[in-house]
């Protein structure tokens, strides 16, 4: 199982919480620069999977590795973007201040921070909102800010937990494309959790579908769709439609 090229790997991972099995025999690895999407019904343990990788939870048995090393505690190698951006951002800090927090945690000297923050905010299109507080930003902007903050950590693995679940359809599409652009620019390894099958197909190099109770891998599918992806062309691509049909039946099984 141990793959030297893997950015992260789950090796026979089981997790019980309060005697109840949450995840059962999870094994897969994701290569560097790969965009992996996890889908499943709510409560199937997909967020738990992400929390194990982030070091916020420890498996009951088995090993979670990042860069070949077992994960025991959170590390700066792994950054997380949460769905509830309004709770994950510091309301008393401006956009700049929120990004700065990640740099402060890394002991980046104060004089150096502005020149690192500006390009990050520019990357997510928040240059003109640098001195605004989160409550003065729209939901989409707040999520962009959280993404900028996670990139400030310069992580080798980026975890995203249903990051666009609370956004309207138009904002969601533009953020999907932004995340794809950022991921390809940085050749980032991404684990993206969603309950939206089409979102998973649109974004991922691979889709991992989970069964519920306990969470197990139901299906793992490579997505050979051409990149860069486009909201119209990709979603009308015959392969996209075929995979959608195939995974749709898997999802029906999952929900059944």
């Amino acid at each position: 199982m141990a793959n030297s090229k893997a950015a992260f790997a789950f090796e026979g991972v089981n997790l019980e919480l309060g005697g109840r099995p949450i995840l059962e025999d999870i094994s897969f690895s994701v290569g560097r620069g790969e965009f992996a999407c996890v889908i499943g019904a709510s409560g199937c343990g997909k967020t738990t999977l992400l929390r194990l990788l982030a070091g916020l939870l420890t498996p009951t048995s088995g090993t979670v590795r990042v860069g070949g090393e077992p994960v025991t505690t959170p590390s700066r190698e792994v950054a997380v973007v949460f769905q509830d951006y309004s709770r994950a951002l510091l309301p008393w800090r401006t956009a700049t201040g929120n990004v700065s927090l990640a740099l402060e945690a890394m002991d980046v000297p104060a004089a150096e921070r502005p020149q690192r923050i500006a390009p990050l905010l520019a990357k997510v299109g928040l240059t003109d909102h640098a001195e605004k507080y989160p409550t003065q930003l729209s939901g989409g902007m707040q999520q962009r800010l959280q993404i900028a903050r996670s990139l400030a950590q310069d992580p080798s693995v980026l975890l995203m937990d249903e990051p666009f679940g609370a956004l309207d359809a138009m904002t969601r599409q533009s953020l999907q494309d932004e995340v794809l652009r950022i991921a390809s620019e940085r050749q980032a390894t991404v684990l993206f959790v969603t309950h939206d099958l089409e979102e998973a197909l649109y974004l991922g190099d691979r889709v991992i579908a989970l069964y519920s109770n306990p969470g197990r891998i139901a299906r793992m599918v490579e997505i050979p769709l051409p990149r860069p992806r486009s909201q119209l062309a990709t979603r009308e691509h015959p392969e996209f439609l075929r995979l959608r049909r195939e995974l749709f039946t898997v999802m029906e099984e999952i929900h059944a």
Partner: protein
Amino acid sequence: MRRWRGIIVPLAILVVAEIGFRVSIGASDSLAPPSRAMVALMSALGDGTLLANTARTLAGMLGGLAIGGAAGLAAGIAIGFSETLRRASFLTIELLRPIPSVALLPLSLLIFGFGYGMEIAVVAFATFWPALILTQNAVAQIEPRLIEVARLMGLSRLETAWKIVLPAAAPRLMTALRLSAGLALVVAVTAEIVSNPQGLGHDLMIAQETLRPERMFGVLFWVGLIGWGKNAALLRLERWLFSHRGEVDTSVAA
């Protein structure tokens, strides 16, 4: 015009008191009309005695508040974060907290003698508890997601306390400060009335013993003004600090 409407009722009460006193009582060793109280207040302010006493009371109040508030804040954060500490201290807190702070005046007098020490000690004891309990609550109500973010970024415990916990709890801590400050003034004046021969409380006692109700009412009015001014100042500070966050906690108006 509208903002002055609130002053109508207190003015009317003063006028009624003045007329009532002049019509029915005339002269008294225990009561005084507002006009004479105001004259007494002006002369007490003029000869410097009232200002000197005010400074002493404020010193006792603020000294005790600083010590009790800071200790309560630190203990509240520590207990708020550590389940072990919370369990270990629970019974002690519940046994000590109900002791009326004023009941400690004889003991405090025995230890510190007359002066600032005893007053500050009792005010500190009184304000420690609300500071502790409200800080603990404020910490408990911090968004858990923020603590998770701090962990994921690798902030140390101290950095987390300073950069996440304190600012996140700040609006509630301001409420705690307002409540504690109100209590501090009450306890400081009480200490001066009961045993410490200095400050505004002592001023009231002297007025009583020398049968000068007009000075007593004048000083009472002055104490009310101080309490009101203190509250207004803290509310302004709170608005100024937190206005941009849109999360000022005005649910408790101390």
